[in-house]
């Protein structure tokens, strides 16, 4: 008989392959905080900028939303994760800043130091 544990492990394997299928292994992963507090601080506009960039062909980027990590005073937050590097977390991101992050960080690999949360 197949045990519930076997079923879950199978489902997990399927889930992971679906996530990978969505491009998770891209060189850069971008997470935008989208809890009530972040949305109130303007993260929807920020998300739109990234979504638009991806729609317009920005390659090598996996975009996802996430819940609140607890940095209330620095919201909205945007996180850029690259394998093997310390993740870069930007705070108080506006739509204009998001545009800059797309141009400078995601396209040219430059970490915009002034905006990074310490």
């Amino acid at each position: 008989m197949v045990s519930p544990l076997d079923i879950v492990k199978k489902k997990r394997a399927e889930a992971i392959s679906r996530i990978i299928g969505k491009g998770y292994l891209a060189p850069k992963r971008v997470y935008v905080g989208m809890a009530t507090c972040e949305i109130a601080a303007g993260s929807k506009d920020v998300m739109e900028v990234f979504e638009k960039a991806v729609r317009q062909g920005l390659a090598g980027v996996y975009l996802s939303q996430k819940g609140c990590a607890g940095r209330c005073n620095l919201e909205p937050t945007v996180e850029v994760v690259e394998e093997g590097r310390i993740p870069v977390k930007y705070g108080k991101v506006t739509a204009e800043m998001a545009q800059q992050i797309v141009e400078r960080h995601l396209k040219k690999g430059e970490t915009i130091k002034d905006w990074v949360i310490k």
Partner: protein
Amino acid sequence: MAVRYQITLCDGPTCMHKRSKEIDAALERELASRGLSGKVDISLSGCLGMCAKGPIMIVNPGYTIYGGVSENDIPEIVEKHLVRKQPVSRLIIEEDHLYNRFFRVFGDVNFFGRQMRIALRNCGIIDPENLDDYLSVRGYEALAKVLSAMKPEDVIAEVKSSGLRGRGGAGFPTGLKWELTAREESEEKYVICNADEGDPGAFMDRSTIEGDPFSVLEGMIVGGYAVGAHKGIIYIRAEYPLAVKRLEKAIEASRNEGFLGTNILDSGFSFDIEIRLGAGAFVCGEETALIHSIEGHRGMPRPRPPYPSVQGLFDKPTLINNVETWANIPVIILDGAAWFSSIGTEKSKGTKVFAIAGKIKNTGLVEVPMGTTLRQIIFDIGGGIPNGKKFKAVQTGGPSGGCLPEAYLDTKIDYESLAQAGSIMGSGGMIVIDEDSCMVSIARFFLEFTQNESCGKCTPCREGTKRMLEILTRITEGKGAEGDIEKLERLGNMIKKASLCGLGQSAPNPVLSTIRHFRDEYEEHIKERKCRAHFCARLVRYEITDKCAGCAACRKVCPAGAISGIVKNRHEIDQAKCIKCGLCYKTCKFGAINKV
């Protein structure tokens, strides 16, 4: 070294005992001798929960965990790992617990380094609207483990021995509650998740649900299995639309994948969850009032016993736990009660989530092991008080809690020690107060809140809080009388003893604790008609000093015509006419008006 390394040293009690301070010093020395000082970030963290393998050192990027590190290993680590980029394999330990697995994705080490995320383990990591994300981080594995290999009594024994206590505030042992519900013979039982978060300034439950609704569901299903219930209800306030939406999505996705509904994962066990919206009455966070509200009655508490575990929703045995409690359950099942109970203090195990707000640099949501001090939370994680102001007090437990002054900053956080200090753990609100705040007004604010939210069923709470509020209002308006403090104390203690439910029993806490710790401020208000924080408008006097340039700006804005003077000469305020609106103070460009 092109890469900038970040090294985190565990500074929890066990690791400290095992010489983490000496290791820190050795590391600094070694870096200095190689001219690498300042090129590597070193931070000390609170207990990382790997005590058995301590002292612990984590090197980022890469999230390499070294265990059993001694001073003698430092040169090797620096040489091999930091300089030659080859981790020292003999010291690396594997950590497969659920908590903190994602520290490597947090760039802001100072904020997160001292935290220990168990209930919030996936918050800020996974996409809360995607079941795949949850499954990928071992989601629903605890449920599967329970259904595959554990009998209900095993689950209860595990939760009992974990030492987990209710995170809603009262701290009742969770395992015992489960056992009491399981013991009842009934065809029909219910499991409830209390998500009626109502403390001003608290947002732990909202963030937990918005960041990871699945953990809460998983905890509830496990609970249902343990006590023999087939129906779960999440009671959440309608003011949390996004949390509700994410819960709905999570429930639907989980149902589609066979984690909810009939015959879960082919185990023969059936359980389903529905959501009930509350209208936002504070009293509905009290379990019996909450149950009345779900039943369609007016949200009012009733005397206990019988407890909900015996006679709860629709008079059936009901297991009711708070959001954070539920979110802890999958971790206890997967990582084991023995591990969970190794974290925290003797009587309070595990971690607690706090929403830090008020006069603090890093407002936010933090999860720390029990036993962390208030000082560590406020100054190390929270970054201290902004604008160079002085710390005055910290309010824990929301309107049911109390204010603790500086002398109590080294209080270790657990249910007992906070109660002893005159406050409570509560659900996790933590409001930091600086010197600009008046303690009498703060007490008044919280009492006004509970007074408004009192349901009116029992006299002590309904009438008692009203009278207390009247006295407090009088004091803040400068009409306090000798004996008011004693009256407040008498009333407060009476309300605590005689009220029906937790709302009334805790409503006087903010007042009683501020009287206990800040009695001199009350006395100043009453005897000297003075508010040292210059907060109580009626007690403030505005005076014009020599700095006055005679510009007449204040005279023009004064709505009461209380200011007189000739242009280019010092003006004066007629205190009898002054209505203390503060307009002159705000208008003056020369800083010539003083609040006294």
